[in-house]
Every structure is written in C-alpha cells, then in structure tokens.
C-alpha cells in the first residue's frame, strides 16, 4: 500500500502514516519501491477528499503581530490518493503522500496573515482540497480616560 513518501518540508512533528514511514524506509532500503504509481487521479479526482486544520483560527491580541503555533493538518479520502499538502505562498512547506487514503502533518508556523492550505496532485496542477487558517486581530476599542487634574498625577 505504502509506496513512497516525500518530505521536503520543515517539519516539527509529522504523524502522517507513521507506520508507513518506517515501512517505506525498509522498502526503500530493499529497493522494492519501484516502479511507482504517481497519479493523483487514481482516487477519483479528489472530489471527496476532506482536509481539516487545527487550529482553524489564530487570534492576535494586543501587542502580538504574529501567530506562532503548531498547526495540525489532516486529510482523508474515500480511496487511495497520491497528493501533496502545500501552503500557498510558502514554498518551503510541502508534504506528499502516494497511494494513501489519509494522512496528517504537524508543523510549527509563524505567520501574520491567513494561510491557505491546499492538497494538490503530485504535479501540483490540480487543487484537490483547500482550507484556510484565518488570522483574526482582536478588535480593540478605546475610550477616553478619566480626566483628573484634582488627583496626585
């Protein structure tokens, strides 16, 4: 089942098919990984692929300009898929699976604007699923201080 995994990403924790990673390593070492199926279309165009993010929202409070958090992305498909998880505008982040029906991936990210996570085919041509991690800046309202010339300060 597990034919190949690619990881070009800066990963803090990756739980994606943990067992398969070890198995893949063994198979790689045995030279049994090839030939490969590399089509991302084998799972029915990815129409039913579900991508979930945790957290889905990062709230910036006063004095904080950036979110710094571990983001956990997980996906599930009705059948085996070959695909890659990317973040739009972040070419340093890319995680691929080949012939898996599910996977998850955790990464520590520092960001100040919305992040768009996408699952794409291995050729990165077709978007199979997409989710947005939103950045919300806490709305701070202000009012007048009390004027107090009678007081000590």
């Amino acid at each position: 089942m597990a034919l190949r995994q690619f990881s070009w990403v800066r990963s803090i924790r990756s739980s994606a098919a943990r067992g398969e990673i070890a198995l893949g390593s063994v198979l790689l070492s045995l030279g049994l990984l090839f030939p490969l199926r590399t089509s991302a279309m084998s799972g029915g165009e990815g129409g039913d692929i579900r991508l979930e993010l945790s957290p889905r929202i990062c709230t910036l409070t006063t004095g904080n300009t950036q979110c710094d958090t571990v983001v956990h992305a997980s996906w599930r498909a009705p059948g085996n898929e070959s695909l890659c998880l990317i973040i739009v505008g972040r070419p340093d982040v890319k995680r691929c699976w080949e012939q898996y029906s599910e996977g998850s991936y955790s990464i520590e990210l520092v960001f100040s604007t919305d992040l768009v996570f996408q699952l794409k085919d291995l050729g990165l041509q077709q978007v199979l699923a997409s989710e947005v991690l939103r950045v919300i800046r806490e709305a701070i309202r202000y009012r007048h201080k009390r004027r107090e010339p009678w007081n000590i300060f």
Partner: protein
Amino acid sequence: MIIAGLGQVHAAGNEDDCEGPTADCVAIGRWNFSVALGAGVRTNPLVNGKDIPLVVIPQLSYYGKRFFIDNLDFGFTLAERGGNTFNLIATPGYDRVYFYRSDLQNFFIGFPNAFEPGTPSLVASGTPGAIKVPPPAPRITYLAGPEWTFKYGPVSGQLDLLRDATGQNSGDEIRAALGIPLLKSVGTVSANIGFTWKSAATVNYYYRVPILYSGSAAFDPFIKLGYTLPLSSKWRFNAFAEYERLGNGIADSPIVAAHGVATVFVGAIYTF
C-alpha cells in the same frame, strides 16, 4: 450644573474619537498598571503627624465601556460628548490619610509602613493637669456623586459633587480642578489649580475635638506644578510640587499644626 450639562449630551460612547492608545485614550476591557519610583514627601498637618513618604506609587485603572476603576475610585460614565464627560463616582474620603499611615490611599500615594496611626495629641504625655481628649479615629468613608470632566483645548477640568455614602458623617465635599499645560517641548510643564470644599459635617468628622473645638466648612485651594519627560515607550520622568492651603475650619482645629499641606516628588514612572 452637572445635571444641566447632562441634558446637553447624548448617551456615552455615541461619538468616540478614540481610535488608539494615546494620552487621552485607553483600551476598553484592559487593566492598566503603572508604578512611580522616586523620592518625595507629603507633609502631615496634624499635631505630631508624621509626613507621608512618596517612594513607590502604584497606579492602576480599568475601563469598561462605561464602568471604570481608577485606583480607589469607582465610576460609571453616564454620558460623553465632545470634550464633556459625566460620571457617577465613588471615591474615598481623603483626610483619613493624615490619621492612618495604613490608609489605603497612602498605598496609592506613598509607601505605607506597618499600621501606624498618626494620632495627634494636644499635649505631651504626662503633662500635669492635662485634660485627656479622645483623639479622632475616622473610619474609611466613601463619597459618591456626579462628576463632570471636560477638555477645552489643552485645558482639562474636573468637578465632583460628593456626599458621604457610608453613613459616617453625612458630609458633603466639592472637588474641582483645572489642568493647564504651560510648556510643551521635549517635556511638558503643566499647572493644576483647584480646590476642595468640605462641609462642616465633613470637617468635624476629622478635626472636631470634643468640648474644645467644632469646625465650620472649609475651602482648601491648591496649586500644583509638574514636569513630565518621556524617556522611552515605558518610562517617563516626573516631578511635581503641590501646595494645598487648609481652610480655617480645618486649620483652626487644635489637632492641626499647619495651615497647609505641601507635596513634592521626583521620580520615574514605568507603565506596564
């Protein structure tokens, strides 16, 4: 005056020109804490009264949309329009600070020692033939009432009409002051002038001596000169000198030795 002015304004918050943290504006829903570190003193006008050192002066405040806490004062903003603000406030009676070093207001004014009543005495202990008079032992009181504050150009003003709300003396008090920036370059030089008027009931609660003295209403004007220099985003230098003249109703009391109260302070304020 306050009630009349209240009719001229709309509900609080209808026109809020505060869009960020400035000298006049503060974030809603957050605690603000600062502490002044320095050296200073407030004189104690009581006979044998010990002066109040000013070394560490913590300041805290919290502003809700209408409710606010300002050190030991509590308030509710009824209306705000343009430069006028109308509040209902509750504030501690001030004069107790001269009698009790441990009074909470001394915590916000200076550097309180352990419990140490500044109980005045009229004669040295052991004086032959002296009549023993029980010294005043004022309790903590809270005054409540309307407050009008305003900003007219660079000048800010405050007028509080207060009445004892704790049933201790049923006295009245009027506090009024103007804050006037005099010079603004690297730092700011400002002057505050104002007064406190205390009804006879308030004066007597603190300064009456049974058999010997019963006071009348007192008018206490004050003037303060201050200088503030921002040192960084968190620190600013601050120095001020204030003199308050005590009205005759207070100064004539046999437990009062001075006709005025002087305050000086030089230090730095750190805002958290």
